[in-house]
C-alpha cells in the first residue's frame, strides 16, 4: 500500500501563487543501518518526485537517504489555467506511485 495525501487549492484566480503540499507513505530505509545480527539493511528509498501541470513538468526533486520516512514536499506555482496536476514518485525496488488533483482557474 502506498497512500498519498495531496493538498491543491480547488479554486484560484489566474496569476495567483498557489501552494501545493504532498505527502506519501514510504519507509525511506537509508541503507546505512544494520540488523541485530550485523547484516546491512538494503537501501529502500524514493529517489525521484515530479509534478506535471497539464502535461508540463513544473517541479522535480531527487531524494536521498537523509530524507525522513513518509516524505512531505511543498512547493509553489502560478495558477495559469484550469486543469490537472499529476504527481509521480519513483524509487528503489521498482517503487512507483502516482496521484492527481484538479484545479479551477477563474
Amino acid at each position: 500500500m502506498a497512500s498519498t495525501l495531496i493538498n491543491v487549492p480547488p479554486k484560484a484566480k489566474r496569476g495567483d501563487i498557489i501552494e501545493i503540499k504532498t505527502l506519501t507513505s514510504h519507509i525511506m530505509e537509508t541503507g546505512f543501518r544494520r540488523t541485530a545480527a550485523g547484516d546491512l539493511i538494503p537501501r529502500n528509498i524514493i529517489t525521484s518526485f515530479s509534478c506535471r501541470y497539464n502535461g508540463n513538468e513544473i517541479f522535480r526533486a531527487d531524494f536521498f537517504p537523509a530524507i525522513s520516512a513518509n516524505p512531505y514536499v511543498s512547493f509553489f506555482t502560478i495558477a495559469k489555467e484550469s486543469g490537472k496536476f499529476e504527481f509521480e514518485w519513483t524509487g528503489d525496488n521498482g517503487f512507483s506511485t502516482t496521484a492527481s488533483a484538479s484545479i479551477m482557474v477563474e
Partner: protein
Amino acid sequence: MKSSRAIALALTLFSTSSLAGEIPDSERRSGYGFMGPDTRAIQDDDTSNPGMLFVLDGETLWNQKLGAAGKACSDCHGEATESMKGVAARYPAFDKALGRPVTLEQRINLERTERQQAPALAYESRDLLALSAYVANQSRGMPITTGDDPALKPFVEQGRALFMQREGQLNLACTNCHNDSFDKKLAGSPVTQAQPTGYPEYRLEWQTLGSLERRLRSCITGVRAQAPDFGAPELVALELYLMSRAHGMKVETPAVRP
C-alpha cells in the same frame, strides 16, 4: 543519549524537595500543549499529518474481506464513520468473556481471530496500527470516557498503583516525572503530563505511527526497568489508568509528537 537523559532526569528529581501529587482536572494538558508551533502545524493539517496516511490505509483494510469467514469489518459494522464513533474514546474496555480489560488493538485482534477467522496481527505491525488509527480517528474531538464501567475499577486501581510504583535501576515511578515534574525539561525537551489523547500517534522520532504500549515500554526501558511484553496485563492496566486519568479530554488521533 538515553542514559544521559536519564541522568539529567535523576538530577532534576533529587533537587525537587516537595512532591506536587496528582494534577487537578482543570490543569490537565495533552502533549499538544507542550509542542512548538511547527509540530502543532503538522498535526493540525490533515494533508501534512503523516498519521493520516495510516488512517487511509486503515480505511482500505476496514473494507477488505479476509479469513476463513471471508468477511470484512464493514460487513458487520457498516460504515466506520457511524459505527465506530466514540468507540476508541472508551477503550481499554472490559471484556465479559475474558473477565479483564482489553485494549483497542486487542479488540481488533479478537474480532479477527473469532469473527473473521483470520490470524491475529502482530503488535506494532503496519496493518494493526492502521486499523486502530482508522477506528480511533472516528472519535477525534470526542471526550475520553474510559473507566466509566464499574467492572474496570480494580484494573484502574492496579494501573494507578503501577503508575505510583518506583522501579528500575533509576528507581523512578511514572508519577515522579508526569505528575510532579511536568513542564520541566529533560535533555532540552519538555516533560509532559502523559495524557494519552492521541494514540496511535505519529512520533517524529519514530518516523512512524506507534501505540501507547510502545511509548510505555520505551519509558520503562528509560528508567532501566524490564519492560513487560506487548499486551501484558501490566501494560493494559497502565493504559487503562492513563486513559481514565484523561477522562473528559479530547481524542486527537492521529496525534503528532516530536
